[in-house]
């Protein structure tokens, strides 16, 4: 990296000052930072609940908290992590910042709606937090009826309304991305020259648009049913609780791809930049994003195998679930092929990308176990499920998010970060993560059910391992927080392209000027075209 000493010129950070210039901004880059701060806050809150859960599970008895409290802890953990951290994290922070730049635009198509979506997100968050501090919710993040509509006496309506409201923030983000990709691309930037990050965000946006409204109406109906005694899902009122599950998972299975697809996009960028190679099979990787988005809508019934769904429907959903693994596997193969014989450098973003590929593969493969109906009857609602989805959501999505943050931090802030610490943190996260969640596969397979404050004593050793791992994981997350904040003031300036990577975002100053581009760029080729250097092939 060259050392740059010149002071940064006018950019999006120093072009205006004061709180109002942030709260009323329409600049996608500033809005991305608003999201960064709020998403981080929610991650901390969700993480706090996680630590409470792990503390309780150190011993088999319910001694640290009462079962009632425990139910609220895992519910708040799930609601906050899913709806307020994972779903907005990469799209609303990194996507918001990078997508307009990557398509060569000055901003998203609807800057004001972009700001609005942040306010909606915050409002929804406030509702949910109010529910949390005034007594909590204990239904589980899935809000299953009739427990949520009739039995539970916790703050279901408040939390449900929070989720409902936040849904619209995600819808508006998706809408903005879709219109931007269609209408704001720079001259020469054809679809097949788009960075893969943009493809994956386009696919994500499709899910946001097509799925989110269904969860919105569903939780709204739960709230209305609770509040006004309309009989929609409650069997006592003639309703059908399995219908709730259909509607819920019609969104929520695709929603897991809202979390993972953007991380896949980040990984595609990082792998190309740090292996110094153009992606192997661009079209396959691009189209597999769309395939995941579309097929992802056809598999939701695999969450209902033991709920009373008909056997034949289960069969269909089981087969369709196997299909969705194909495009996921295509990506893994293509990343691997890209790295093969590349000039690989082991910078921290690449460490996260490696972590992503490995952990996502484990998560995805265990998904296939679960998609087999017979096996799922055994492991449904055990810690095996918990391990499965944490491998994809924490091992996959959060690894991708952290990798992306490290990769683009120099662009976002104009400063580097201490690479030594970053490598150490990446390693800590990897070790802590596996120690936390791998034992859960075993203990789940042995039969430990999820969502209980107590468990059989013979499971204790796995749970102690898991809780120990969770503390290591927490340290791994706190270290970047510290050095990122530190870097804002003390780290060396980054210059416009510290990684020597290719892409429109690396051609403009760091931090970028408010208008991104002084002159609208004209694109003539795909990004990440690295000149074949002598190292390639022998590395």
């Amino acid at each position, binding site marked *: 990296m060259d050392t740059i000493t010149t002071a940064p010129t006018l950019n999006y950070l120093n072009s205006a000052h004061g709180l109002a210039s942030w709260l009323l901004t329409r600049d996608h880059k500033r809005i991305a930072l608003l999201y960064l701060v709020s998403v981080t806050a929610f991650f901390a809150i969700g993480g706090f609940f996680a630590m409470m859960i792990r503390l309780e599970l150190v011993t088999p008895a319910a001694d640290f908290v009462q079962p009632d409290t425990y139910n609220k802890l895992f519910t708040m953990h799930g609601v906050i992590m899913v709806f307020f951290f994972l779903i907005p994290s990469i799209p609303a922070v990194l996507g918001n910042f990078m997508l307009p730049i990557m398509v060569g635009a000055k901003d998203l198509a609807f800057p004001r709606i972009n700001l609005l979506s942040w306010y909606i997100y915050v409002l929804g968050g406030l509702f949910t937090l109010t529910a949390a501090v005034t007594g909590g919710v204990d239904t589980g993040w899935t809000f299953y009826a009739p427990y949520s509509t009739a039995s539970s006496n916790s703050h279901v309506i408040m939390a449900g309304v929070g989720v409902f409201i936040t849904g619209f923030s995600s819808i508006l983000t998706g809408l903005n991305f879709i*219109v931007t990709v269609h209408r704001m691309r720079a001259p020469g930037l054809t679809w097949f020259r788009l960075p893969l990050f943009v493809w994956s965000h386009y696919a994500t946006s499709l899910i946001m648009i097509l799925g989110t409204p269904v969860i919105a109406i569903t939780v709204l*109906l739960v709230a209305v049913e609770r509040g006004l*005694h309309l009989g*929609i899902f409650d069997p006592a*009122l*003639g309703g059908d609780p399995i*219908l709730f599950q259909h509607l819920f998972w019609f969104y929520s299975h695709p929603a897991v791809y809202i979390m993972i697809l953007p991380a896949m996009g980040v990984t595609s960028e990082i792998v190309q930049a740090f292996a110094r190679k153009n992606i192997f099979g661009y079209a396959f990787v691009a189209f597999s994003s769309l395939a995941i988005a579309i097929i992802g809508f056809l598999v939701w019934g695999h969450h209902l195998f033991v709920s009373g769904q008909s056997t034949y429907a289960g069969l269909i959903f089981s087969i369709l679930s196997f299909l969705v693994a194909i495009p996921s596997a295509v990506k893994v193969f293509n990343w691997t092929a890209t790295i093969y014989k590349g000039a690989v450098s082991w910078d921290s973003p690449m460490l996260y990308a490696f972590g992503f590929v490995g952990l996502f593969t484990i998560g995805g493969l265990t998904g296939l176990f679960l998609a087999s109906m017979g096996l799922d009857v055994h492991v449904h609602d055990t810690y095996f499920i918990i391990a499965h989805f944490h491998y994809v959501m924490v091992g996959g999505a959060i690894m991708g998010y952290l990798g992306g943050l490290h990769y683009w931090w120099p662009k976002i802030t104009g400063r580097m970060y201490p690479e030594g610490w970053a490598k150490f943190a990446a390693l800590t996260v990897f070790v802590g993560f596996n120690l936390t969640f791998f034992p859960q596969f075993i203990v789940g397979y042995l039969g430990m059910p999820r969502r209980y404050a107590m468990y059989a004593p013979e499971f204790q050793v796995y749970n102690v391992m898991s809780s120990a791992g969770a503390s290591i994981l927490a340290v791994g997350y706190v270290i970047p927080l510290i050095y990122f904040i530190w870097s804002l003031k003390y780290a060396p300036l980054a210059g416009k392209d510290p990684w020597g990577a290719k892409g429109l975002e690396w051609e403009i100053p760091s931090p970028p000027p408010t208008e991104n581009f002084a002159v609208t760029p004209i694109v003539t080729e795909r990004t990440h075209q690295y000149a074949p250097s002598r190292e390639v092939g022998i590395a």
Partner: protein
Amino acid sequence: MPDGHAHAAPLDAHGHPHEPAHPKLQHHFDDMGQRAEASTLGMWVFLVTEILFFGGLFMCYLVYRWKSPSGFQEASFELNRVWGATNTAVLIISSLTMALAVRAAQTSAKRGTQVFFLGLTMFFGLVFLGIKAIEYTDKFVHHHVPGPHFHWDGQYPKPAEQFYSLYFAMTGLHAVHMIVGVGIMAVITWMAWRETFDEDYYTPVEVAGLYWHFVDIVWIFLFPLLYLIGGHFKG
């Protein structure tokens, strides 16, 4: 093009004269065409989310009607088909005036014409809501509102209560959309009064129109599914 919009062509950075930027062009768009296309596409995409938003309710309707067809027929028979049909006609008329309002803007019609059609649209929207209010009151009076006070004399009290749960959820959500629509129309009418729209710039009217027509379409399905399935019910 009205005179007010003509400017001398300024020179761009390279000293070439270029088309004057339209006064309503936001900085991040290249030209008004791109802006108009982005807005209409945005509205269409939004309407897709609305399709699926209402879709969840239609899904519930489908399942419960499939489970108790006779109960739904019996319950539907109690709805007032005259009010329902009248409201359908009212909404269709309002869609017509909406379409004509868009056309008026597209053809740079006088502001009086634009305001006239927009005002009519709003008026019919309010008529619809008024009729809905009459119907709702009637349901309250006859204890056909689900909940502890629900009362049903027919053979199928449970499915009937479910039917009315869905009736209120679906028409209620639709009515909320109508109220929002009337609000939007009020803003658009005010803009038209200020002579905002002409053949070069009419995207807001067009986009508001798309929304209005969509809400009409929802009703086109709600009317037969709620009001007409008991038409030949023989008890």
